[in-house]
Every structure is written in C-alpha cells, then in structure tokens.
C-alpha cells in the first residue's frame, strides 16, 4: 500500500515538473522581445570595469548615466573617435557630472573584445574619458538593453529611467565628414536633461556594426 502511494507520488511529481518546466519556458519566451525603451526603468546591471572592479547601475543613483556600446575595430565607432566628437562629448559630460560608461559586449575572439589592460590602453590612445569601460564578454548587459550596434547609445536619467535610446547622430554613415553635419542626439538629450525638460527625440534606430555577441 505504501509502495503504491510512492509510485503515485513519483508520477504526479514527474508530470507536475514537466508541466512547470514547459510553462516556465513559455513565460521566458514571451518576454523575449523586451528591450530597454525610453520611459522604462533601465535594466539593472553589474559588470567588471577595465580595472577589474564591479560597477553597477545602483552605484550611480541620482546621476545621469550615458551608455556607449563600442568596438574599437568597427568603422562606425572609428568615425566618431577619429573625428574627436566622441571624446569631446565624453569630456563635456564629465564636466557636467554625468557618468559615461563605455560598454564592450564583443564575445571573446571577436572584433572589439578587449582585456582590461587593452581597454585602458585604447582609452589613453584615443584620449577618451569614460568614467568606466565595462567588459561584458558574455553579452548579458548588451542583451538586457537590447544593444544592437556599435555605437548604440543610451541615456539614463537621475530617476533611473531611460531618456534616450538609439543612434549617436542623424547621419547613418561611416564617413567621418558627416560628423559635423549631423545632429547629435546624445548631446541633445543631455542638454535637455540639464535644462530640466524631456528631450524631443527619445528613440531612434541605431546604426553601425552589429554587436559581436
């Protein structure tokens, strides 16, 4: 008799486990397409910076944060660094107390993947001034934000909500001569935040190389 109940127990437990797992898979799949969009709370993240320290979004509560997805081998990233535009945007953000995080989501062995030392060397070479370069080789942070290209820019307001997501500027090209002609959406978003009003453009389609997940 006891044996029979044990059999029952196994069968019921087995069926329940199968059902629960199937349901879990379906729930996960339903959430597949959620990317970080303006107005949403930015996904929390914790990644290592180039010095090996942990950096999380919670560290910057109450401050404006800029996320820049980058890959030093990508011609679209080179366009913005060779023109000096990215560096000057970083410097002005720094002066305004804005936290600039450059994020590298290239998987190991792919273009743009860097070690901490290489990241620091690149920062020095390019005279860039991000607060941190975050290393995201497993792409978890990139996927959480739905980062598609390098560059792909996000501005997070002091309340932790996404203020801007999209392209760095308005001319979709890899030609460095287009930089001064284009409207820089990140700089517009930061100016608007500074003036205490919402930016006019909050969402654009990013352009560039694919993030090397």
């Amino acid at each position, binding site marked *: 008799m006891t044996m029979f109940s044990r059999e029952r127990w196994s069968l019921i437990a*087995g069926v329940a486990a199968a059902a629960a797992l*199937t349901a879990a*898979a379906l729930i996960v799949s339903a959430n597949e397409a959620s990317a970080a969009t303006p107005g949403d709370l930015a996904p929390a993240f914790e990644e290592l910076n180039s010095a090996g320290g942990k950096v999380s979004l919670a560290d910057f509560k109450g401050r404006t944060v800029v996320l820049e997805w980058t890959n030093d081998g990508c*011609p679209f990233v080179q366009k913005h660094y060779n023109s000096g535009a990215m560096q000057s945007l970083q410097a002005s953000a720094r002066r305004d107390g804005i936290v600039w995080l450059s994020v590298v989501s290239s998987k190991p062995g792919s273009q743009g993947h860097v070690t901490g030392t290489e990241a620091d060397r690149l920062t020095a070479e390019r005279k860039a001034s991000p607060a941190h370069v975050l290393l995201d080789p*497993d792409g978890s942070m990139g996927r959480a934000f*739905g980062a598609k290209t390098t560059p792909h820019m996000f501005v997070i307001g002091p309340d932790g909500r996404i203020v801007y997501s999209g392209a760095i500027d308005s001319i979709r090209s*890899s*030609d460095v001569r287009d930089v001064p002609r284009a409207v820089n959406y990140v700089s517009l978003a930061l100016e608007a935040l500074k003036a205490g009003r919402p930016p006019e453009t909050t969402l654009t389609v990013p352009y560039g190389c*694919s993030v090397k997940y």
Partner: protein
Amino acid sequence: MIRTMKRFLGVCAMAASVLGVSGGALAEPVRTGHTLAELISERAAAVPGDLFLGALRLDLDDGGWHVYWKNVGDSGLPPKIDWELPEGVSVGDFTWPAPHAIPLATLMNYGYEHQLVLPFEIRLPQGATPGSEIELKGRASWLICLETCIPEQADLVLRLPVAAALAPAEASGALIADALAAAPVPLTGEAVVERTDEGFRIGILDDAVAASAPAAASARFFPDGPEIVHAAAQTVEFGPEGLSVSMTASEYAPSGETPLSGVVVVEGKDGSRKAWAVAATPAAVPAGVSGTMLSPAGAALALLPLLSLLGAAFLGGLVLNLMPCVLPVLSIKAAGLVHTAHNPAEARLHGVAYTLGVLVCFAAVGAILVALRMAGEQAGLGFQLQYPPMVAVFALIMFAVGLNLLGVFEIGGSLMGVGGNLADRGGASGAFFTGLLAAFVGAPCVGPFMAPAVGVALSQPPLTVMGVFLVIGLGLAAPFLLLSFTPAFARLIPRPGAWMAVFRQALAFPMFLTAIWLLWVLGGQTGADGVIAAVAGATVFAFGVWLAGRIGEGLPGRAVSAGVILLAVVGTALSANMITAPAEAAQGSAASGGEVSSEPWSPERVQVLQADRRIIFVDFTARWCATCQVNKKLAIETDEVKSAFAEYDVAFLVADWTNRDSVIAAALAEHQRAGVPLYLMYPASGGPPEVLPQMLTPGLIAASVRKAAGPGASEALSGRGDKL
C-alpha cells in the same frame, strides 16, 4: 575559378580602355578589399534622349561576405553612389532585388551574398551628339561584412558611346534583367495589417501569392522600416486567398494601428524566390489567408516538414539506445525487465514509469535549454555536463547505483528522492528513476537523425523545441515500453531464481565504468583536484551507507547516516564548483591526447588556413561525448586517416566543447547543430566545408580528404593572388 575569370575580364576591360578601343560601353572594374565593383549598362551604344538601364555590380568574396539591402536590419549600411554627371544626364534610384535574411547571433541583417546588381535608370539629353562619348562618374561606397565590417569605396566610370542607332550589351543586359526579375513585383491584390499581442499580423490577399503556396518552402516579410524585431521568428500561414505573417513588434513600432510596408518573399522548395512589394493598411486580417502553417520564416515547417522533423527526432531517440553513452544505464533497465517479465501488470506499470522518467528528463533538458537560449546563452545539447558540479554529482550517483546493484545497501522509504531499490525489488519509482538517468546520460549524446532534428528545432518556437525533445524521449523509451507490453517476451526469459542476483551484481560494473568515464570528464574540466574531490565524496558516501547498515533501523541512526550521505553529495558538488582549472590546460590535454597532431580551433585560425589554401578538418568534440571518443579512436586515429592527412597536408583543428564556450556554440549553431560531434572538412579551394556524418569510418574521412583536395592543385594556386 570564377574569381580568376572575373579578374581576367577586368584586366581585359582595363587594357581595352587604355588602348582606346571604342565601339562599346566601357567600364573599369575596381578591385577593393573584398569586392570587384563595376558600373554596367544594358547599352553598348546609346542614342540621344535615350532612357535605359545601368547598374552597379558588386561581386563579393565568397564565404559569407555580404552587403546590405535598403533596410539593413539590425546593423549595416546600404550601398550608394555619389554621382558626378555630365550636363543633361540624369540617373534614377536603385531598384533593389529582394533581400535575403542573414542572421548573426541574436541579430538579423537583410542583404546579399556573392553578387549584387543594383539597376538604375539613365537618361541622356536630347542634344547629345552621335559619335561623342558620355562619361558617367560616381563614387560608389558600400559596407561589406563577414563578422567584421569594412567600408569600401571605388571611383567608378562608365564610358558610353552615343550613336545614331542603339546597340545592346548582351552580357550586362542579361545581368540587369536578372536583377530586375529578382526585384519585388507590385501586388495586384490587397494587403492589410492588424495589431496582435506580439506585434503585427499582415494579411496578403492575392491570387499569385496564394498560388505560390503548394511549392512554398518558406516565406518571410522584410519591412521597409524598423517596426518589427528583425531577428524574431515569423509565423507564416497560407490560405486559399493568400498568406499571413505574424511578427513581433520592435520598440520602434508606433503604438496603435499603423500601416506597414515591405517585401514578402516566398521561397520555393526548388530554391526559387518570388517577391511582392507590400503596402498594408490597417484592417482586420480575413480568414482566407490562414490555415496552413509555414513557420517560422526561414525554416519551412508546414505540417509535413514538422512531421518529418518529429520522425527524425523519434528515430534519433530510438538509435540513442545503441549509442555508447546510454548502454550502461540501459543495463539497469534490462535487469528490471528481467525481473518483471513474469508479472505482466507490473511490467506494464514499470514500462510506463520508465517512459515517464525519460520524458520528464527530456522535458527538463528542453525547457532549460530553451530558457538558457532565451537568456542569450549559447547553450546546446550536453550543456548539463559542462558544469563540473553536475558531472561530479552524476559520477557519485553512478557509483551509488553500482553499490546498490552489488547489494552493498538497499534504499528504504526514508530516502525518497532516489526511488526504491533500483533494479530489483524497486517498483515503479525505480523504473522512473532509471528513465531519468538514461535520458540524462543520453541527452548529450548526439547520434544520427537526432543532430539535424535538434539543430533545426532550436531555431523554432519553444513549443516545437519541447515537442522535438519529448519525441526523442519517446524514441529512447520506445523499445522498453514495447517489451513491457509484449507478453511473448516473457517466455524468452528464464524463471526467476538465484541467477538474477548474480545478473544484477554483474550489472554494477558498467555503472562503475560510467563513473570512471565521468571522472575523466571532470578531470578535463577541473584537473586532478576535482577528481580527487569526487573520489573523496564517493568514499564519504560509501562510509555513509556502511554506517546506515551498522546503526540499523533506529531514527537517530538513519538521520546520522543520511547526514553523512548528504555531506558527501553536497561536498562533492561544492568542491567541484570551486575547483576551476585553467580551460587552456583542458584544451591542451584534449588536443595532445591523439596521435594525429592537431591544434586548437578558432574561426580566425580557419580563415588563416583557408587563405593558405589548406584542407582543414575540424573536430567539434567534448570529453563527455562518448560518440566523439569512439569516432576518435576508431576512425580519426587510424593509419588510413593519418596517411591521408599527411599526403594532402590537412590541418587538423580540434574544437573542444567539454567546457562552456560561446564561440564553439555559435559555430555549431551556424551549421544548425546544437551539440557535438560535428565534423567539417574545408576544401583546399576555399568555400564552405563538407559536413561529415556523426558516425565516422576511416574510409569516409579519407574519401572526404581526397574530395576536398579538388581536381588539381593548379586551380588552388591560381586563386591565391585574390587574397593580396
């Protein structure tokens, strides 16, 4: 060869222009890093006021290099030309051939491989003088990508004689006509779009579209804009009046009803493509465009292909029973069968319980795999054995099962989770547990039939994945289920007696061998320390069960011995988790294990070797993959293969997936595989590799090497210049 010819033609054209040969339109092809670019015209000579077609022709390097459609998808840039035109000459916009979907990890691009011909209209002024020459100059720029992207540009010139009578340029005209034929045609019917929970459902009511249904293998909607998640699967249904496509909305989609425009491409089973330009207006999608699933876009899964996928999965599961990795566990099941053979009711119950055990394990493996992939992990089959703690605990379980079979201990009701006395007395829960175990070891074992089924399934919606996994489980369980329900089988088995105890004890040894195999896997992952930890755990475990036997039935004694056993299991898992040897060490040992000299695989290494025109054999393997080990011993490390490798200077690369590795997982996915083994033979001439079967023989490898060497070495040598 083709590339060489292109170069030759290019040189001829240049030579002709240098020599001032006239009498035909002359273009000067320009070789850039990965492209041969040229302006072509359908006219060899044009007349004043002529309106005709020219085109930008881009011949791309093979091997996956691609350029982009006008909507690039998630990343990229379309080609363009900045013109410098003579007075009075005008040039129109490009006509874009229907794009192809080019998936990249979790992103999607729209574009073209091999060749792109982009036609445009050219209008000459009425006042052009016959006998003169018109020069169309333009700077073409395009982004060409493989994994990395390179912006290329070329200053192109098309010199066109103006004559009294026009003269066609046959070859260029044919290319342009092909490009126009590949462009979408306007829809004669109508298109509507409605919002759904996920995003959009577009309905295309058109007789020509409906007529394409019987021959359709797949269909996809390419939007003009960013409204959909490009990489998300599309669900396509055909109906008597046309087709419908369900898509996921992106963050760029406006909220509420909105029009949607783009191109729908129906790909036939014969590889032909038909494309229609679609401008859908918001309205409810009528019923006449649905009914027959064709899902998702890219991999055709009408009912019939889905059935054949499930059929392959079932066969795969069935064959799994013969794979080296499952055999030891099956021996437990065999013992159970022998015991219940003369009690039909019990036999049936056990058969069902065993099947359930297998199914639960496969459901769990499938669900976790789906979840991991949703979370962006590049997980594949066998992922459960890529975690050292799992391997360690699993080795411990095998050891425990072995001890149990030997009769060292009997499991009472207090140790619920492990089930009854496993093979002998142990009722249905024992059979259930055996099923779990068989599936757990069986799942990482990719055998024939199963590899393609799972590879295809993983690109499908979660429900299909679960279906395929459950059917594989059903296949694995089928033989025993059948035997349990066949009374005739019982007559073949001797009456129960003392021989059964002996039989059962003998079965302990395959279990110990399995434990040793798992320790070897663990050794590859964590080094000697991990193995020592697991063996120590096994000793503590043995002490625990011995203690249980000594202390007897009392509750405190039970508690103490259960505690010791728990300590063994948890301690083993924890220490295996903490000990992480450098992955390179594991790779190195796997690579040096063979007598055939090999080196670690990487996509970059393959590119370098391909550039050197070497034949490359890639062995995607893992220590926990028993099939891989059998192939290695019986096929790869044989004299026949060794001499073939030496004769043709074959580069032997090993991709060891014993530990998690997203680069290897991505490469497996590229070949629609979710697990190892996978064997690739890259030909000396460059280009895509031949995929060898999962079960290798020396003759098969040697034949593949000879095939990869090609008809002669001269062609390979002449192609080398291209890489300069």
